[in-house]
């Protein structure tokens, strides 16, 4: 009786460790489950099965490969819209496009390598998480164009990824075929702030960011405050951050996000809440719904990507990922693209706010006109949408 269990326990302990390892190294568990790019039935798997031109494209044609982040390609979020942009460009250029969805972070590099092995012309990688693997691949394959969505390439003097974020090397000259797509978040935040000020009844609106040292988060928030004040100068904007250093609390803990936001709403008495905090921010949307106030989403149309908060989402401050990716690929194809950071803003249709889909929200009649005017001024470059120290939080 006593002998048998001991072996069984050893087995259990081992299997627990294997299971733990699997969650970070799924590649070893199911190597055959990963589709090769060639085998991916592109038209059938696309979120919007509009075109099938790419499937029959000849092998010598311009080839585009997209490596998404983990999850799925039709996630109504970064993956979907980035892939959409690649597909739009492929349709316009008569190119072929396929995608790979890594099962976890350890597959980023191998999936990028698959496209390299297939002699793909442009490889698009989706999101900040793939940044370092993309830089490494760009360094190893100087002939292939890499498009890193939402990444500001940070390299050391040799062109390798710089984990210390000193960014001593000039990515544009060291890696001339790597394009990091960046967005001017403050412009999107500015438009969101105007909407928030317009739908607020009490004149007190709020915004919550992940960490105050993240420039992209801060740009959104600085724009939001300026936009709200521009719409109605008497409006009060209360700002807060989920954490000062804990990444999980700041971007990955929706339960904490809801707790923090509920307390923020009841103490600051805001009646509109803008979140810039990933999954933690989804908890902020939940809290806004629970408190019966309006919420504003971030990055993508959260009315679509986070439907459980639909009853309170007014709009979302958006990065136009599809437009940015499509424009970048077309520029590469035309030979006009340059390495380094490619900045997208109102002038090149890089940012905006989502369409108003929530019919329960009554918008002031003058809002749309003012939004259009602000957008036009941004395009003309005559509207200041960020503070002097853009990207650096100087508030309380």
């Amino acid at each position: 009786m006593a002998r048998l269990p001991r072996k069984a326990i050893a087995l259990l302990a081992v299997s627990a460790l294997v299971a733990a390892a699997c969650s970070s190294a799924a590649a070893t568990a199911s190597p055959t489950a990963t589709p090769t790019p060639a085998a991916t039935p592109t038209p059938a798997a696309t979120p919007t099965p509009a075109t099938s031109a790419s499937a029959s494209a000849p092998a010598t044609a311009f080839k585009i490969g997209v490596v998404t982040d983990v999850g799925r390609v039709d996630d109504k979020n970064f993956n979907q819209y980035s892939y959409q942009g690649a597909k739009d460009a492929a349709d316009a250029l008569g190119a072929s496009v396929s995608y790979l969805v890594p099962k976890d972070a350890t597959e980023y590099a191998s999936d990028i390598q698959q496209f390299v092995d297939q002699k793909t012309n442009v490889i698009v990688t989706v999101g900040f998480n793939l940044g370092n693997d993309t830089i490494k691949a760009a360094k190893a394959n100087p002939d292939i164009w890499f498009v890193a969505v939402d990444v500001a390439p940070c390299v050391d003097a040799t062109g390798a990824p710089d984990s210390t974020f000193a960014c001593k090397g000039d990515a544009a000259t060291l890696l001339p075929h790597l394009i990091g797509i960046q967005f001017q978040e403050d412009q999107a935040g500015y438009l969101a702030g105007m909407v928030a000020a317009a739908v607020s009844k009490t004149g007190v609106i709020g915004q919550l960011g992940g960490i105050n040292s993240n420039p992209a988060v801060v740009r959104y928030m600085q724009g939001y405050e300026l936009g709200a004040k521009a719409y109605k100068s008497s409006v009060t904007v209360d700002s807060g951050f989920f954490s000062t250093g804990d990444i999980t609390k700041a971007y990955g803990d929706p339960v904490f996000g809801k707790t923090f936001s509920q307390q923020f709403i009841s103490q600051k008495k805001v009646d509109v809440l803008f979140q810039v905090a990933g999954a933690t921010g989804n908890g902020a949307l939940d809290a806004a719904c629970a408190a019966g106030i309006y919420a504003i989403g971030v990055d993508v149309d959260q009315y679509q990507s986070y439907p459980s908060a639909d009853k309170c989402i007014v709009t979302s401050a958006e990065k136009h990922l599809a437009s940015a990716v499509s424009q970048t690929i077309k520029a590469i194809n035309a030979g006009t693209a340059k390495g380094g950071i490619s900045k997208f803003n109102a002038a090149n249709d890089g940012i905006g706010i989502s369409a108003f889909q929530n019919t329960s929200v009554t918008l002031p009649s003058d809002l749309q006109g003012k939004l259009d005017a602000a957008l036009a001024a941004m395009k003309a470059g005559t509207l200041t949408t960020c503070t002097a120290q853009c990207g650096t939080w100087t508030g309380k």
Partner: protein
Amino acid sequence: MSGIPGALDAIPLIGLVFQLMGYLIENINPISATTVAVSVPIALAALCGVMCERSGVVNIGLEGIMLICAFVGWYASALVAGALGPEAPFPLFGATPALLIGVLAAIVAGMLVSLLHAWLSISARIDQIIGGTIINIGAAGITGYLYTLVSGQSLTGAGQFTPLGVPQEVATVPLVGWLLNAVLNQGPIGLTTIIIVIIFQIMLFRSRWGLRTRAAGEHPRAVETVGIDVIRLRYRNVVMSGALAALGGAWLSMEYGTQFQANMTNGRGFIGLAAMIVGRWSPVGAFGAALLFASATGLSLSITISPPSGDLGNVFSYIPSEFWDALPYIITIVILAGVVGRSIAPAADGQPYERESAS
């Protein structure tokens, strides 16, 4: 750093206490609401621990059990919701068949994982700390891996339970309005927790089952000599306790949140263990400790969101936010060290029981 002693010297302590009381009264509503909400999963984990350890089985796998149940409950409810299509929720708590089945699935999963722990620690007699660690490590790995697989499917989820809600007249009752508001503004699992605490406390100290449980945790041989099957008693308690941790997991993914998230327990099971120790292995004590820890969270959030003015604000500005996160563990160490009222575990806690005849 030279500012700290300077600031403290200049502040008369009495004034500071008054300022703190004023600040607490001013912000009692948001702080108490946060406190109750944060305490629910901690309390449920702690109750699970009390039930196990009172009968002599150490269970540090609470975190893992909660995580597995959060996943199983959410996934089951999402599957059922997908199969049944949209259903009109019941008028009370926004419950749907999918959500109820999800909670049931979570409870079954919690009991099964606890059964594994019971077998490991009672029958196989391995080191119970290692048994719990296996569950914790395994749970993080398995749920993380399964969630990655599942996130490839188009799951919309089954939504969540809604709070009972408090009428404005009740919430604004003088003196106790804040308390009613905090306690009643809970979903079904949150409210059940309070009922479980009361029933569990009475059962543990006033019933035959409770007497036997406590005896099995203190002196199992004596219990066996009067003809009670210690092994069976421990099995039953450990498996039952799994249902309590399961409710904590279900609360995370189906009542407070709307979906599972990898590693979403985020240490709440371990704080539950701390609450059990600080609460001296009694249900009401554990619940009180969970409330104490949660109120530290509520206060720290309040200070972050709207810092008090004056001297009190100066003092708080010197406390880093990490201190508040560490507070439950600091309190636990102080209490374990016996500085403020010693907390003593059941005598036979963690010792596998061997029958005389078997040895």
